[in-house]
């Protein structure tokens, strides 16, 4: 007996990869035949992402993705970015739109809204990442007239967001100093999907064993030449470099 579900088919725990057939034989008079497909399962999201990226580009908007673990400082980096922009031009935050992704609550959206940016919160429920379809609908809720930049703050997660583009032109991967400088080696798919490594919470460095150079070197083993910078949203250190990377624009 099959040990996986107790049906009468052979198989069982020794072959966990083969989801065994319960109705394996064709009906009488119907020959089994092979149908070629050869289609990527991510193709639908890739098409949605491309369409969204082009729609935004047509409006003169570049979307930048923020990826990283829960608590790595994605929202804090955005808050500080908006604060610095507002210091030179009080109207600048209004030209920024933010899509916030979390499993639950609109806490992050409220934080961003107080800084003057337009913001849409996606509550994903059990879903562990955003995708182009979700982000496209979230942006439909916002008036994008006059917006120059969109930030897509993904669900805090170092695994699932990697293969799902959300229509961003570039993605920044945040690694906070308390997480440890070996994070890029532990989550290589995330590094492979990133266009910039941002080490955050550098104000905590005196209390930790985190080595910024070692972290960057480990990320570059996965993705050679990956741009990298180190910031503290709290002290403001490194924020100039972050703003310069944002302003540099460009595509992957």
């Amino acid at each position: 007996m099959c040990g996986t579900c107790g049906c009468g088919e052979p198989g069982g725990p020794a072959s966990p990869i083969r989801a065994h057939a319960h109705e394996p034989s064709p009906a009488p008079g119907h020959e089994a035949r092979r149908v070629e497909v050869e289609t990527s399962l991510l193709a639908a999201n890739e098409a949605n992402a491309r369409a969204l990226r082009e729609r935004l580009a047509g409006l003169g908007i570049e979307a930048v993705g923020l990826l990283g673990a829960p608590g790595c400082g994605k929202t804090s980096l955005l808050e500080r970015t908006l604060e610095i922009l507002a210091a030179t031009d009080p109207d600048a935050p209004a030209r920024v739109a933010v899509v916030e992704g979390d499993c639950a609550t609109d806490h992050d959206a409220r934080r961003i809204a107080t800084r003057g940016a337009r913001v849409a919160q996606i509550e994903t429920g059990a879903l562990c990442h955003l995708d182009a379809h979700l982000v496209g609908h979230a942006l439909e809720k916002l008036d994008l007239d006059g917006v120059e930049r969109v930030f897509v703050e993904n669900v805090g997660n170092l695994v699932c967001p990697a293969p799902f583009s959300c229509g961003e032109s570039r993605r920044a991967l945040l690694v906070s100093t308390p997480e440890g400088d070996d994070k890029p080696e532990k989550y290589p798919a995330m590094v492979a999907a990133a266009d910039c490594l941002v080490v955050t919470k550098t104000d905590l460095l005196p209390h930790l064993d985190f080595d910024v150079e070692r972290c960057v070197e480990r990320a570059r083993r996965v993705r050679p030449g990956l741009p990298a910078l180190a910031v503290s949203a709290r002290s403001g250190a490194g924020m100039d470099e972050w703003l310069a990377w944002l302003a540099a624009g460009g595509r992957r």
Partner: protein
Amino acid sequence: MHEARLCLSLLDLAERHLERAGGERILAVRVEVGALSGVVPEALASAFPICAEATRARGAELRIERSAGRDLVLRDLEVC
């Protein structure tokens, strides 16, 4: 955790090809899963029979081929 969602995309794609081929039922599905695709083959295999229950791939066999790289591809179907 997103394997169930990918499974639904997989079944949606498979059913469209079944229809195009004029078949009635999907007997087997062959999928290539890359090591950097972000998909865990074991999780995909667990999700498949549950997701397939309400489709014309009910009871179908999922054949997973592992590869290097980031590919996640529906290779072919066995239909009748």
